C-alpha cells in the first residue's frame, strides 16, 4: 500500500472563505474531538477532496472558542497523550443549524444559476 501523502496535492479544492467554521462545527457534531482528530476527520469525510492547512485550523478553533460556540478542555487520547479536546456548546449547535440552512440556500441558489435546467422545476 502506498503511503497517503497529506498536505498540498492533486486536484484538491481550497476552502471557500468562511466555510472552515461550518465544517469544524459539523465535524464536532459527531462528538468531542482534538485538533488533529478534527483535521483527520475533515480529510477522511470529504474523501480527501478538501485542502485544509492544519495550521489554519487552530486560529479557527480559537475564533470559535472565543465566540463560545465550542469549548475546550485538556484530556488524554486513546493512546494516552495529552491533547486539547473540543466540544460543541448549545450556542454552537444553534449556530450550526443556522449555518447549515444558510449553506443549503446558498448552494441551491448557486446551482440554479449554474444549471437552471437540471434543478428547475
Amino acid at each position, binding site marked *: 500500500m502506498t503511503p497517503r501523502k*497529506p*498536505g498540498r496535492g492533486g486536484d484538491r479544492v481550497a476552502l471557500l472563505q468562511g466555510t472552515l467554521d461550518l465544517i469544524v462545527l459539523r465535524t464536532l457534531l459527531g462528538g468531542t474531538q482534538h485538533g*488533529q482528530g478534527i*483535521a483527520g476527520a475533515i480529510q477522511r469525510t470529504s474523501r480527501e477532496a478538501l485542502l485544509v492547512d*492544519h*495550521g*489554519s485550523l487552530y486560529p479557527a478553533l480559537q*475564533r470559535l472558542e472565543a465566540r463560545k460556540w465550542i469549548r475546550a478542555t485538556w484530556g488524554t487520547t486513546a493512546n494516552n497523550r*495529552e491533547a*486539547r479536546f473540543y466540544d460543541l456548546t448549545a450556542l454552537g449547535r444553534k449556530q450550526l443549524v443556522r449555518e447549515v440552512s444558510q449553506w443549503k440556500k446558498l448552494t441551491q441558489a448557486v446551482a440554479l444559476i449554474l444549471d437552471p435546467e437540471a434543478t428547475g422545476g
Partner: protein
Amino acid sequence: MRWWRKRSEADYAAEIRTHLELQAEELTHEGHSDADARALARRAFGNVTIARERYFESRRLLWVEQFLQDLRYTLRQFRRAPGFTAVVVLTLALGIALNTTVFSVVSAILLRPVPYPDPQGLVAIFRTERGGYNREFVPAADLQAYREQNRAFTDVAAYGEGAFTLGTPDMAQHLQGAWVTANTFRVLGVHPVLGRDFRAEEDVPGHDGVVMLSWPIWRSSFMGDSAVIGRVVSLNGRARTVIGVMPRGFEFPEVEKVWVPAALASSQLTRNGMVLQPIARLAPGVSLASASNEVATIAKRLNAASAGDAYKNWGATVMPFRERIVSSEGLRVPMLLLMGAVGFVLLIAGANVANLQLARAVTRTREMALRTALGAGRARLARQLITESVVLALAGGILGVLATVLAVRAVRAMVPVEIPSWIAFRVDPMVLTFAAGLVGLTGIVLGVVPAMHGARVDPQRALKEGGTGSTHGVSRTGVRGALVIVEVSLSLVLLVCAALTVQSFLRVERSRLGFDPDGVVAATVSFGAGHFDTTANRTVFLSRLIDSLEATPGIQSAAAVSALPALGYNNTWGFEAEGHPVPVTDAPIAMTSPVVGNFFSAMQIPLLAGRTFATREATDSASHVGIINQAMARKFWPGESPLGRRVRRVGDTPGPWLTVIGVVGDVAQDGLGETGTPLPQMFLAGGPWQVMAVVVRGSRDVADIATLVRRTVRALDRDVPVYDVHTMRELIANSESIWLPRFYGVFFGAFAFAALLLAAVGMYGVIAFTVRQRTREIGIRVALGATRADVLRLVLSQSAKLSGVGLALGLAGAIAGGRLLSGILYGIRPTDPATLIMVPLLLAAVALAASYLPARRAARVDPTRTLRDE
C-alpha cells in the same frame, strides 16, 4: 506585565506540539519512517510560526506586544548611551518647558473663557465715538432703551465699579466693589451660595439698603458665619442689610468683593448723568454681528431724540464680555509674537536633537543592517526608531511640564498688578493638552529623521563596511549642515528680538519722569464714610493730615492729589480758553486733578512761571484757580503768557471760569515711555474726590514714613481706610508702562539665551562629528605635510561657512520679523544699526568658540596612529 498572554501562549504551543506528534504517529502507522512522518506532519501543518502569529494577531494584542518589545529595546539603547539620552531629554525639556510656559500665559490672556456659565453668550455693550473709539461707559439713561427695544438679548444688566468703606468697630476697611442692576447675577448665570439674589424692587432709591458679599469677605470679615444674612453693616457710612454671599471664586466684573444695587434716581438718568457698563445675554441663535447692528440702530434712535450736540456722534456696538476685561486689541500681536519666538526655540532644540540622532544613526548603521538581515521589516525598524524618539520626547515633555509648573509661578510673580483670578497663569488642562500635542509632534517628527535614514540602509554594504557608514557621509553632512544653518539663523532672529526688547525696556525705565520719585511714599485714602460727603469736609481732613505729617521731624512736604503722576489719567475734560469759543466736540482735552497741600514741592515738579496755591485758596473750593503744565500752556496759548488767563469746562452746562496762576513742568502722567508724552494738565486747588492719593517726601526711612502715614490717618479719623501704601519707586516699577516692557524683555531674553546655548551645542556637535568622520583624511593630510594651523583652518572654515550662511539668513529674518515688534518697542527702531551689527558678531564669536574645541582635537591628529587603525 505579560499576564494576558503568557499562559495561553504556552498552552497554544503545547496544543500544536500535540497535533504534530499525533499526526506523525498516524503517519508512522501508515508506514512512514519516523523522520519522514515528522517532516510530513510539519508540512501538512504549514508555517507553524505564521499560525502562531496569526493567532496572536487575531487577539489584536500583537501591536502591544511589539510596542513593549520596542520599548524594552529602546530603554536598553538609552542605558547604553546615557550621555546622548541626557542631552536629548534636557534639550527637549528646555524647548517644551519654554513653549508650555508661554502658552500658559497666552492661553490665559487670549483663550481662557470668563468664569461664568455659557461664556460665549455673555456680551458687553460699548459706546462708540467718532474715530472708532470704544468706550466702556454708557449713560444709565440709555440703558432702559437697550433693555426694552432689543430682540437680540434675553436680558441686559449694568454695573459700575467703586471704592467702598466697610465700617467695623475697630477700623475702616477699604473694599473694591460695584453697583449692579438687580438682574446682574441672573444675567451672569451665577447664584448666591448663601441667602438670596437682589430683587427688582431693591433697585430703587430708598429701598436699596442691601448688600451682597463675596466669599473671601464673608470668610475674613464675618468669620464665615452663616448668621450674617440679615445683619446690618455700615458701607460707605450707610446701613445696609446683608442678603447673600456669592460662591467661592466669584469675582465681578474684575476683582470686586462687594455688590450693592445701582438704584438709579431719575435725576441721574440724563445722557450727561450717571454712566454704567452694560452687559447682556445673547438670545439663542443671535450672532454678535446682528446684536451689534441692533444696538447701533437703537443708539441712532437715541441720538435723534437727544438734545445735546455732544452726543450726536455716539454709536454702540456689542463685543464678547471677555473683551471688556482683557482687551485683546493691544495684546494679541505681542502674545502671538511671544508664541512664535518660543516656537523658534523649539525648532532649534528639535534641530539639535535631529543632529544628534543623525550622528547616532551612523554608529547604528551596523545594528540596523543586522536587524534587516535577520528579517526585520523596514516598517518594523521605522517603528522602533519612532518609538525611541517618542520615548525621548515623552521624557523631555514630563521634565518640561514639571519645569513649567515652577516657571509659571515665577511668571505670575512678574505681573505686579491685581488681575482677576480666572486669568491667573497656571498649568490647566488646556496647557497640558498643548504640552501633550508638542510631545507627540516632536516625537513623531524627530523619529522620522532617523527612520528615513534607517530605511536607506543596504544591509550587505553596511555590514561589509563594518559600520563606519562613510558611503553616506556626503549627503548626511549636507543635512546636518542645513540643520546648523537653520539653528544659527533662528538664534540670530531671537537674539535681535531680545536685544531690541531689552534696550526698549531700559529706555522706558530711563525715560524722563518730570518729577523726583526718590524718598516719596504714596498711600490711598478713601472717604466712604457718611460725614465726608462734602468736598469741604474732605479738604479739612486732608489739610489736618498734611499739617500733622509736615510737623513730624524728617518729613519735608506732604500733599494729596486725585491721580499720582506716572500712574495714569482718570479725569479728562474738553476745555475752552476765554475768547476762543469752540464747538463741544472739538474742544481740546486736558486732565484735571484737585490737589491739597504742597504737591509740587512734595513731587519736586518745577514751577516755571507764576506761583503755587496760597493756603487760603487750597481750602476754599470757590477760589477757582488752577496751575497748568507746559503742554497745556502751549496748546491753549501758544506763544503767549498763560498767567491770568481763564479756561472753563465745555458741555451742556459749562463749568466755572478757572484762572491760571502758575505754570509747572510736564510730568509723564500716563506712564513712562511713549505713553508718557505729556498731555495738557491742570491742577485745581481743593475739591478732593472720594478717593485721594497722599504723597509724603521725607528724609526718613520709607518704611517709617509708611507707618507714620497709616498711624496719622487712623489717629485723625478711624472711618478713613488707608491702603496701597508704597514707595513711589515701587509704584513706578509696577506700573503698566514699565512692567509690560520688562515682561517682554525677560521673555525674549530667556528665549535668546536658550537659543544661543542650543546653537552653540549644535555647532559643537556638528563640527565634532565631522572631525571624527574625517580623521583618516586629516591623518593623510598631516602625513603629506599639512601643519596644525592648516588643519585648524580647514575645520574652522567649515564652521565659518555654516555660520556665515546662517547669519545672512538670520539677518534677513530679523529685519523682516523685527517690524512686527515695532508695536512694543520704545525709543529704538527694529532696524537699529548697532543692534543689527553687534548681535550677529556676538553669535559668530560663540559659533567659532563652539567649533574651536573639536578643531583643536583635529589639529592634534596623529597620522601614524590614525592610518594604522584603519
